[in-house]
C-alpha cells in the first residue's frame, strides 16, 4: 500500500503527465502511419530517455506501444493497409466492414476492445509478474539456462512461417552476441583488435538500425504512393459498442487471454497474438462463414488480443530479463541505461517504479478511448501526410540517437550496418525477432551454461538436479523433440504443403 502511494507520488508530477500525454499522441500517429512501427518509435526515443528519470522513461515506452498497436487498426480499416504488423490479421475484415458502410462500428470496436484487452492484459501483468518474481528469486544459473533455451526455442518456433529462416536469423543474432568481452572468461572475442567492440555491439544502436533504418530503406525502395482514404469516419464512433460487448464476451475474454499468453512468450509478440486469436475465434465461431465478409467478431477477439499482448510482453522482460518482443528488447536496453537491472530483484529494489509502471498501463489503456476516438476523427488528415517527407527527419533522428547513446561515432556505423542487415533480412522474408533475441539472450545463455558447469564441476546431469531446473529442462527437451518430429514428418510427406 505504501508502495502504491509512493508510485502515485512519482506519477503525479506535471512532467510525467506531460510525457504520458505526448507519447500517447506520438504513439497514435506512429501507429496510424503505415510503415512507421511501434518498435521504430521506441528505438528512436531511447536517446530522449537518457535525460529522464526511470518512471517517465518507462511510462513513455508503455504508453507509446499501447497506443501504436491500437492505431495500426485505423489505416487497416480505411485503406486495407495495416498501420503496424499487429493489425495485419484483421485488416481485410475491417476494410470489408468499411465497404459495407460500417467503418464507425469497426473503428469503435478496435478502440473499445483494444482498451479492454489492454486492461485485462495489465491485470494479468500486475498479478502474475510479482508472484513469478518471487519464484524467480530462487532461480540459479541452472534454471536460467533452461529458461533461456525455452525462450530461444519459442523464438524459432513461433517466429515465422519458415523454421529454417527463423533458425538462421537466430544464429546471426547469437553470433553478434558473441562479440566483445562480455563472456565468462572475459576474453575479447571477435573484436578484431578494436577497443570500440570490447564492450560488444551497442544494443540500442543495433536496434535503431534493425527497426528504424531498415524500415526507411524499405519505404524509399518500395516507393509506391499511399492512396488517400475515400471514406471519412464521421458518425458516432462508440455507438453500438455496448451491444458488441454483450454479444461477444467469449471473444474479448478469450482474445485477451490468448493475447497475454502469446505476448509473454519470447519472440512471439503482438502480431502473432492477433493472428492466433483471430484464427481461434473463427475456429470456434458459430458464424464462421461470416468471417472475412465484414463481421465484427474477429475484430473484437484479435483487437483485444494484440493490446493484451503489449502488457504480456513485459512479464518475461521485467521478471527474467528475457524480452517478449522487439519493443521489450529495447526496453531491456533502457532499463540498463537507467541503472535498473531487469530480473526478480527489480520488484524489491525498485518496487515503487514497478508499481508506477503498472498504474501507467491502466491509465494508458483508459486514455485510449478518448484519445483513440480523436485519432479516428483526425485519421483522414494523418493519412494524407506524404510518407516520404518523414524519411529525412527519421534518418536524422536515427543518427543523432545512435551517437547520443555512447558519444562514439562507431555507434553510427553499427546502426548503419544493422540497418542494411535488417533490410536484407526483411526483403528476403527472414523474421528479425529471432535475431534480436539472439543478441540479447546469447550472452545470457553462455554465461548461465558456464556458471552452471563451474558449479557442477563439469557434470551435465546437475542441470536436472534441482526440481525447477528439471521441470524446465524436460519442457525444453520436449519442445525440441516436437520440433524434430515436425521436421521429420514434413520430410516424409510426399506432397509439400502450400507455404
Amino acid at each position, binding site marked *: 500500500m505504501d508502495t502504491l502511494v509512493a508510485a502515485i507520488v512519482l506519477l503525479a508530477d506535471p512532467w510525467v503527465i506531460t510525457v504520458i500525454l505526448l507519447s500517447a499522441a506520438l504513439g497514435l500517429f506512429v501507429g496510424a502511419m503505415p510503415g512507421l512501427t511501434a518498435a521504430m518509435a521506441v528505438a528512436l526515443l531511447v536517446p530522449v530517455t*537518457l535525460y529522464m528519470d526511470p518512471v517517465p522513461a518507462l511510462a513513455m515506452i508503455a504508453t507509446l506501444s499501447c497506443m501504436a498497436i491500437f492505431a495500426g487498426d485505423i489505416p487497416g480499416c480505411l485503406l486495407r493497409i495495416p498501420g503496424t504488423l499487429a493489425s495485419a490479421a484483421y485488416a481485410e475484415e475491417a476494410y470489408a466492414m468499411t465497404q459495407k458502410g460500417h467503418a464507425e462500428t469497426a473503428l469503435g470496436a478496435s478502440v473499445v476492445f483494444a482498451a479492454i484487452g489492454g486492461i485485462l492484459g495489465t491485470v494479468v501483468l500486475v498479478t502474475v509478474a510479482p508472484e513469478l518474481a518471487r519464484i524467480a*528469486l*530462487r*532461480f*540459479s*544459473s*541452472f*534454471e536460467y539456462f533452461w529458461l533461456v533455451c525455452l525462450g530461444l526455442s519459442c523464438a524459432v518456433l513461433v517466429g515465422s512461417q519458415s523454421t529454417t529462416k527463423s533458425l538462421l536469423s537466430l544464429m546471426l543474432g547469437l553470433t553478434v552476441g558473441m562479440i*566483445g*568481452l*562480455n563472456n*565468462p*572468461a*572475459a576474453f*575479447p572475442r571477435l573484436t578484431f583488435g578494436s*577497443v*570500440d567492440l*570490447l*564492450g560488444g555491439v*551497442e544494443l540500442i544502436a543495433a536496434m535503431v538500425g534493425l527497426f528504424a533504418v531498415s524500415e526507411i530503406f524499405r519505404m524509399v525502395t518500395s516507393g509506391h504512393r499511399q492512396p488517400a482514404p475515400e471514406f471519412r469516419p464521421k458518425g458516432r464512433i462508440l455507438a453500438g459498442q455496448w451491444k458488441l460487448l454483450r454479444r461477444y464476451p467469449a471473444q474479448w475474454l478469450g482474445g485477451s487471454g490468448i493475447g497475454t499468453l502469446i505476448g509473454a512468450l519470447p519472440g512471439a509478440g503482438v502480431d502473432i497474438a492477433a493472428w492466433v486469436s483471430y484464427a481461434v475465434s473463427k475456429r470456434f465461431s458459430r458464424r464462421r462463414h461470416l468471417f472475412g465478409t465484414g463481421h465484427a467478431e474477429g475484430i473484437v477477439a484479435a483487437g483485444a488480443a494484440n493490446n493484451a499482448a503489449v502488457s504480456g510482453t513485459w512479464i518475461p522482460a521485467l521478471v527474467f530479463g528475457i524480452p517478449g518482443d522487439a519493443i521489450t528488447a529495447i526496453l531491456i536496453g533502457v532499463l*540498463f*541505461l*537507467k*541503472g*535498473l*537491472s531487469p*530480473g*526478480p*530483484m527489480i520488484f*524489491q*529494489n525498485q518496487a515503487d517504479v514497478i508499481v508506477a509502471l503498472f498504474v501507467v498501463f491502466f491509465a494508458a489503456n483508459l486514455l485510449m478511448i478518448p484519445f483513440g476516438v480523436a485519432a479516428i476523427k483526425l485519421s483522414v488528415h494523418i493519412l494524407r501526410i506524404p510518407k516520404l517527407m518523414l524519411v529525412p527527419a527519421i534518418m536524422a533522428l536515427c543518427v543523432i540517437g545512435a551517437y547520443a547513446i*555512447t*558519444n*562514439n561515432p562507431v555507434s553510427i556505423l553499427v546502426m548503419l550496418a544493422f540497418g542494411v542487415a535488417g533490410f536484407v533480412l526483411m526483403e528476403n522474408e527472414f523474421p528479425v525477432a529471432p535475431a534480436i533475441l539472439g543478441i540479447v539472450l546469447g550472452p545470457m545463455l553462455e*554465461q548461465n551454461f*558456464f*556458471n552452471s558447469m*563451474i*558449479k557442477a*564441476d563439469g557434470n551435465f546431469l546437475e542441470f536436472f538436479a534441482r526440481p525447477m531446473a528439471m521441470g524446465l529442462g524436460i519442457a525444453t527437451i520436449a519442445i525440441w523433440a516436437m520440433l524434430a518430429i515436425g521436421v521429420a514428418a514434413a520430410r516424409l510427406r510426399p506432397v509439400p504443403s502450400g507455404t
Partner: protein
Amino acid sequence: MKKPNLLAVLASGALTLALAGPALADWPDRPITWIVPWGAGGAADQITRAVVPLMEKELGVPINVVLQPGGQGAVGHGAVAVAKPDGYTWGLGTVEISMLHWQGLAEFSAESFTVAAVLNADAGGLIVAKDSPYQTAGELLEAIKSNPPGTFKASGTGQGGIWHLGLLGWLLAEGLDPDTVPWVPNQGAGPSMQDLVAGGVDFTTNSLAEGRVLIDAGEARALAEMGTQRHALFPDTPTIEEATGTDYSVYTWRGVFGPAGIPDDVVDTFVAALDKARQSDQFKEVMANGGFGVAWIPTEEGTALITKSDKDFGVTMKAAGLIE
C-alpha cells in the same frame, strides 16, 4: 542551505587569486570536458553528477560530462589518458585503471594519469545466504581449509573483476592455493547476490553496500568487511582481520583523474574546487544514498594509492595464474 557570507567569499576569492598567480588568469578560460567511462545511472555517473554542478560554480566555466562506456572502462579511461594534459580534460577514473593493462586490454596504467583525488573507496565483503551453516568468517575459512578444493564456489562480479581479485588475494593471504574456491563469473554484484540467495554459490565477496537490500531483507548474512575498518552501514560486522586474524583488505575506488603531466598550478586550482564540491551536502547525500564509502585522498597520496593498487593487482593476477 546556509546563506554564504558575501564578504568572506569575496575575500577568499581575492586571496586565492593573489596566491595562485598568473596561471589562474589563464586556466580555466573555456569549457572543461569530463569523461565518465561507464554508463548512465551507474556509480561513476552518480558521483559525477553530484560534484560537477558545484565545480562549475567554483571554476566559473561549464563542465561538459561525456559518457563513454565500453570495453569494461577501456574506452573512456583511454580517452582521458591520451588527452592533452592542459587541464581541460578530466574524467571519473575507477579501479579498472590498475587492472585492465595487466590483462592486455588497455594501454594505460596508473602512471598514465594525473590524480586530482580519490573520492570513494569501498572494501570487499564476505556474504553468505541466510540458510548457510557458517555464522562467522572464521567458520567459513575453516570449512574452506578442511574440505577438498572446489567444494566452495564464490561469486561477486565477472571473471578477473575486482571482487574476483579480492577473493584470490584473500586466499593467497591465507596461504591457500588460489584454485581452492572456483569463481562463478556473474555480471556484477546484483546478479551474484541473487545467485547466492538462490543457492547457486556458497558466498560472495562483493561490497556489503552492494548486498545491502538482500542483507536487510534477511535473505543474506554479512560475515566480514574486507577493509581496514568496519563499514559505516554495518557497524556490527567485523573486519576480516578482527574475524580471522589475517591482515587483509581489498578496495574498489573511484576518483577524478586527468592525463599525466597537467601543470601543478592547474591541478591545485582544480583540486581546491573539487575539495569544496565534495564537502557539500549534495555530494554527501548522493554518497549516502548509494552506500558509497566516502574518501578524500588527493594528489600525491592518491597517486600512491593507485600505484600500490596497480602493483598489488599485478602480483595477485600473476600468482593466481590469470596472466602470464
